[in-house]
């Protein structure tokens, strides 16, 4: 088992109106982690702490084995970071940015950079102030990918992008997947951006990590059951069931620990299982968040 690409444990950070508490996440090499949370949940703060841009108030952070924030100059040699908030120098051209980045990073793949220019349809001589939002994100992604980083950190990269630009960027990101030593951390407030390609999923809400596990595990353990309940009879509890919503004789049960015994259990209790559905990652996310907000333990 090789060393994790990054590790945060017990990380706290307080601001006047926001607190990040007990953040604990790690990623094994060769994986993609989808980091999902509503706006203001703490994704950007966590990512900035990971990159050493902000210092944690307590807890340990390691990026490619380097302690953060002290080791950030070394760590960032192999880590590239793109954030939706990031801007380029408006008076300089795309080419000038490429030259600047190439001059400060240890690995710059000039051939690949040229390929990306063509694929993204970016003009090297164009000043960045003339770039649309989509083109700017593509330029930032180009500058990150051409560095051939071991870890690529993306903070809301797809936000505000048209579907075509999104696919263009996604196609290039998948190139990283073919290398089992390279990883991606990808944050979004939108599960769909992240769901398809992520190996690991981490949910964050109100400054706390709610859940972090592999995606298939999420999709396998969560189910929604539609039941027909005899009138007046409350449903008996079952481990893992986190929500029961009833309306007349119909009940919808949401469980985070589905086993094949569950439908049988309800049948025995006198209910009829009409349907057992898988849940989308978005539905799982909302259910996790609601459940954690009601019981923040």
């Amino acid at each position, binding site marked *: 088992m090789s060393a994790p690409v990054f590790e945060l444990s017990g990380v706290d950070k307080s601001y006047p109106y926001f607190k990040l508490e007990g953040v604990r996440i790690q990623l094994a090499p060769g*994986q*993609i982690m989808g980091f999902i949370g509503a706006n203001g949940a703490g994704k950007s703060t966590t990512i900035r702490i990971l990159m050493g841009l902000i210092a944690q108030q307590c807890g340990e952070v390691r990026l490619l084995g380097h302690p953060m924030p002290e080791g950030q100059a070394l760590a960032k040699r192999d880590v590239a970071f793109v954030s939706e908030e990031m801007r380029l120098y408006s008076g300089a051209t795309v080419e000038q940015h490429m030259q600047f980045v190439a001059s400060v990073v240890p690995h710059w793949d000039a051939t690949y950079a040229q390929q990306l220019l063509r694929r993204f349809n970016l003009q090297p001589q164009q000043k960045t102030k003339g770039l649309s939002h989509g083109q700017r994100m593509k330029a930032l992604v180009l500058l990150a990918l051409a560095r051939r980083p071991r870890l690529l950190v993306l903070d809301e990269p797809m936000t505000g992008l048209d579907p075509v630009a999104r696919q263009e960027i996604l196609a290039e990101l998948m190139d990283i997947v*073919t290398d089992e030593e390279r990883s991606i951390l990808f944050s979004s407030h939108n599960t769909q951006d992240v769901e398809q390609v992520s*190996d690991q999923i981490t949910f964050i809400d109100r400054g706390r990590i709610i859940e972090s596990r592999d*995606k298939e595990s999420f999709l396998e353990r969560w189910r929604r059951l539609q039941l027909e309940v005899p009138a007046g009879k409350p449903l008996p509890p079952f481990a893992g069931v986190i929500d029961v919503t009833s309306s007349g004789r119909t009940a919808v049960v949401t469980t985070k620990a589905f086993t094949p015994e569950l439908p049988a259990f309800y049948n025995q209790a006198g209910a009829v299982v009409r349907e057992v*559905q898988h849940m989308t990652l978005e539905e799982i996310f909302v259910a996790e968040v609601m459940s954690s907000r009601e019981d923040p333990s």
Partner: protein
Amino acid sequence: MNSTFLISQADPRPMYLQLMEQICQRIAVGDWPAGHELPSIRALAADVRVSVITVKRAYLELERQNVIVTRQGKGSFVADGADLGLRLRSQELGDHLRAVASLSLLLGVSVEELSQRLSEMRDELTREKP
């Protein structure tokens, strides 16, 4: 560049199942004959734009069903007789359909009703599958 595999988020079935089905299709029609080497997990993940873990799961399931064989350090290959097996199953389906068609004609069941009942049956089976 688009992949010839198509994973749809609109499809309610889990992605790994969709992938398995499409792999089986290729085997059944003969595009991937017995002994054919499957793309590496990472290459396929990148090509189809799904997570590595999804492809891993699909490959594991296919191996469990003896459709493919994974050799440590060498890769995954279409199992001997896998294509045959799938083609046989496909043929079996054809035979069953023939029987259903003739029975429905006999009983005067319309195509629409047939379709409806088939659809319901499939849904029921999908539900039951854990």
